């Protein structure tokens, strides 16, 4: 017990470093997912048929294959074949981001489709181009409606990021296991990993909940079924 404690204390700086890498991978993954998912959602709702097909194909692929398989496919397969030398953490960030893009596109698409068509028509009638209506009317509303789903996606991506361990990225999971195998304190270090993930989930979800409150509009999003 005493020994476990000493090991943990001694490992703190090392584990915090891993936490930083995990956070970087998750934040990077969420942002890549946002950059991919938002345009894909818009394309799926408003785009021409070939584009819609392309988006559906992308979503179908990235939702249909386990993250672990995707990590191997890209890191040891595609990136190597392309002669692209990226470190494990960067590779994991990109793969997590691409997969998250598929999920995020469906979150945003659901929000966009839940908006009344009438507001778009009203914007058109005022002389908005479709693009202006999407940017000024549709997306600000869809983004607000998507925040709960986005928060959920964050908590999933955070946990998926532990898989980067198998590529050799030195994130939380890798570092706790590294210390564990050298000190034989498996229980203590696995619990430490649990604790770190738990705190990161809690902090992220809480931060997004605060953002949700900050951008809330009176009565908006609550009036789902209007008479």
């Amino acid at each position, binding site marked *: 017990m005493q020994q476990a404690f000493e090991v943990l204390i001694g490992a703190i700086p090392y584990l915090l470093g891993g936490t930083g890498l995990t956070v970087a991978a998750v934040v990077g993954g969420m942002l890549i997912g946002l950059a991919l998912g938002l345009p894909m959602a818009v394309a799926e709702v408003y785009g021409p048929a070939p584009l819609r097909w392309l988006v559906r194909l992308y979503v179908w692929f990235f939702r249909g294959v386990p993250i672990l398989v995707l990590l191997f496919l890209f890191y040891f397969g595609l990136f190597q074949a392309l002669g692209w030398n990226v470190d494990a953490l960067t590779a994991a960030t990109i793969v997590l981001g691409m997969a998250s893009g598929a999920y995020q596109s469906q979150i945003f698409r659901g929000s966009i489709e839940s908006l*009344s068509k009438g507001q778009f*028509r*009203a914007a058109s009638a005022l*002389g908005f181009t479709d693009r202006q209506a999407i940017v000024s*009317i549709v997306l600000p509303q869809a983004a607000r409606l998507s925040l709960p789903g986005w928060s959920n996606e964050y908590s999933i991506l955070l946990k998926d990021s532990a898989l980067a361990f198998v590529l050799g990225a030195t994130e939380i999971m890798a570092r706790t296991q590294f210390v564990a195998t050298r000190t034989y304190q498996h229980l203590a270090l696995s619990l430490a990993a649990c604790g770190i993930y738990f705190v990161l989930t809690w902090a992220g979800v809480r931060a997004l909940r605060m953002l949700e409150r900050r951008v809330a509009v009176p009565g908006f999003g609550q009036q789902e079924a209007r008479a």
Partner: protein
Amino acid sequence: MSQTPILAVEALSKTLGGKTILENVSFAVRRGEMKVLIGPSGGGKSTLLQCLNFLHVPDAGTVRLDGQAIDPRARKALYAYRQQVGMIFQDYNLFDHLNALDNVALALRKVKGMPRAVAEERARAELARVGLSDKEKLYPAELSGGQKQRVSIARALAMDPKVMLLDEPTAALDPELIGEVLTVIRGLARDGMTMIMATHQMGFVRSMADEILFMQEGRVIEQGTPEMLLDADSGSRTLDFCTHLAEFEAGA
């Protein structure tokens, strides 16, 4: 009375889902005129109004503003045209994430490219015109139906339209809120606004309409002044319809 009609509609036809919704509709609107569309539900009034600013693209026919034919494929010209034709919807269609002031100011900024301060000043003036100066900070969900419709009128007016299209603007309102909206519309008519309005508010129609178009099954089957069509012994289809409407409302 000017010679060229401000808005001319020639032989408009529209098919939706294999069904003919509008069939060879023609009429002309003079400057400052109030045209009223009356007719049974499903007769094509909403489709006609949406064809006039190309929210629905007609299959055939021409719409002219000030003698100029509008080609909906010329997108730039279409967007410019739509700014000159205000549209009021039955269910308001306010932008739910914006307060009343921003609802009115947004198109001024995004479409007309006005700086925010200028746009807001204009938006305040339009809100004052519809009697909502004290409501500019309120969001759509915080407004009554009548207030929402007045904001939507202010939003349309801010664009300086030459013509306004109103699609049953009071049909979704509780009876006690209809008056405030009709009062605003009367004010517009007095100020010389040209309007095409679908409505079944017969008191309003009798006193305000310059001409009634009675629409049924996608065609204008009667056309004339309220005196001509609503006179007790006119024997018109319009009168027949309105009598039934009155009976229905009295019974309801």
